[in-house]
């Protein structure tokens, strides 16, 4: 019992010390299994999921259920991507639960990509048609299978909307028929405004 109490004490101490270290140096302690498994992701998505590029989604704080769905869709080819298909297969081999749990618990850092204020304002108006499924705050809804959009880089969101519009993302997925029909009715400048608006949320 005493040794168990010591272990707990030591754990609390380690946790307290870890909290004191700045986020940049404590992105992943060696004992978190997901940290090393996420090496397959970190070259592009960052070691703590804080992607810096406009085309790359931020994985920090992404709900585990959605990251696992995305990995599964990429690996099976349902969501075609020559880059993500091999890496998704690799993540599944390594253990997708660990990787998803790791990124879900990482603190979200705002994307450094600058946004246009006018685009955000226009996007806010246009976003009423998205809120029904993605929520007023763009946080998504697991029950509806809709991912959070808030705070993702605008370039990534725009690329995805264009892929939906052209039926290149998850082609033939019945769950997305209504979404794609909606996208087809939206012109590209409006899609860019929507991307800017959702990128601006939660910053």
């Amino acid at each position: 019992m005493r040794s168990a109490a010591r272990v707990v004490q030591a754990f609390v101490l380690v946790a307290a010390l870890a909290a004191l270290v700045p986020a940049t140096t404590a992105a992943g302690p060696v004992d978190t299994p997901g940290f090393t498994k996420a090496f397959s992701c970190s070259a592009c998505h960052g070691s703590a999921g804080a992607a810096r590029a406009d085309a790359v989604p931020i994985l920090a704080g992404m709900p585990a259920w959605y990251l696992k769905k995305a990995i599964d869709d990429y690996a099976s080819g349902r969501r075609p991507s020559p880059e993500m298909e091999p890496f998704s297969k690799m993540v599944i081999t390594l253990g997708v639960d660990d990787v998803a749990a790791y990124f879900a618990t990482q603190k979200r850092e705002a994307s450094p990509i600058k946004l246009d204020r006018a685009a955000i304002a226009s996007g806010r108006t246009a976003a009423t048609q998205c809120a029904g499924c993605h929520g007023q705050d763009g946080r998504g809804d697991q029950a509806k299978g809709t991912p959070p959009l808030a705070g993702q880089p605008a370039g990534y969101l725009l690329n995805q909307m264009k892929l939906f519009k052209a039926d290149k993302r998850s082609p033939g997925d019945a769950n997305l028929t209504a979404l794609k029909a909606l996208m087809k009715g939206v012109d590209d400048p409006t899609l860019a405004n929507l991307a800017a608006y959702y990128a601006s949320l939660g910053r």
Partner: protein
Amino acid sequence: MARMTRREFLKASSAVVALSGLAGCASTGGAPTTTSTPGDLAPNRSGRRVIVIGGGWGGATAAKYVRMQDPAIEVVLLEPNDKFISCPFSNLVVSGVRSIESLTFGYDGLRKQHGVKIMRESATAIEPDAHRVRLARGFLTYDRLIVAPGIDFQTEQIEGLAAAGDRVLHAWKAGPQTVALAQQLKEMPDDGVFVLSVPPAAYRCPPGPYERACQVAWYLKTRKPRAKLIVLDANQNVISKPALFRAAWQAYPNLEYRASNKVVKVDAAARELTTEFGDKVRYDVANVIPPQRAAAIAVQADLVGVDKRWCEVNHVSYESVKAKDVHVVGDSTIGIPVPKSGTVANSMGKIAATAVVNLLNGRPAPEMPPINTCYSWVSDTEVMAVINAYRIDSGKVVQIEQKLTPGQSALYAHHAEAWATSIWADILA
């Protein structure tokens, strides 16, 4: 030993002061202690020191990831250059699409964010038995060493190449030669001939020479349409993404590709290259990428195999098969079924760092496979790519899958830019 000049003494002293000062531990201050072994530039008091030789894609990543995972480990990075210049994307400097400045970064992130101690020095020798790295004016001891020196050129394998000096450039280490080659291309006569010589595999960046061919051909097509590019390839075929490159070259009728044309001689005065079969090719600009091997420090330390070219390593820990407590990452390695690419070096840096951290903490190195992506710019706006995923099987790296982009596009160019921005930050920020 030769006497030190005053300047040399000051430089050596300041290196010691910098190291001791940054250590910030129980030592009494900056001055060298009297108890240290003569020549020891900074006594290793913690018993947990990792030295990294080379601040490129593999070495800089390794230095950062050791510190991220165990801030109690002291990390000393030996890198003679004060800036990191990215080889990936540097073919775009040759064609004038990007500036060299856009590929140039400092090491402040490693120093300030991660507490890596950086010495602007070259390692002159490794003494694995003594756990020492020799520098110009003394030595440093280590508990584990990570060797990431990159490649050197086997200039001696091409007659006349050394004598040609800077008249015939390789531009295969991004930096002054890259800028100089861009200038040579710009100044070439409008009806000139640019000859690009591709070395036999294995060499740094398998698709790199073919991407360079695209960039030179794109430049000539848009700026000097009467000029011509001849690619003399020592290999029997394009050795990376052949179908995608050949498709891209359809847009460049000014590009002539000759397989199995190994260049063996350079005559800079006559502006003529000679191939293995005795064919002579006249040029206005010759860009000869020489055969390569692991950098000199790895050869000197006898980390290379019987071929005297590349370093064989354990696939899990990246520890040299020839020297204990010495790990090797990046382009100087061989035997793992991965290309000599920046992404692979970055990947190896993380995995070796994790191995080192675990081993220094008395635990086994976890099994982690590397990844690879190679984006290639086929014009100023379009990119295609190859992607490789791996797993570890019975202690060896094996490929799960290789995938190519279905073609070239502006979307993949967008992805390539994103990859570069992200991975540069992963290495240095």
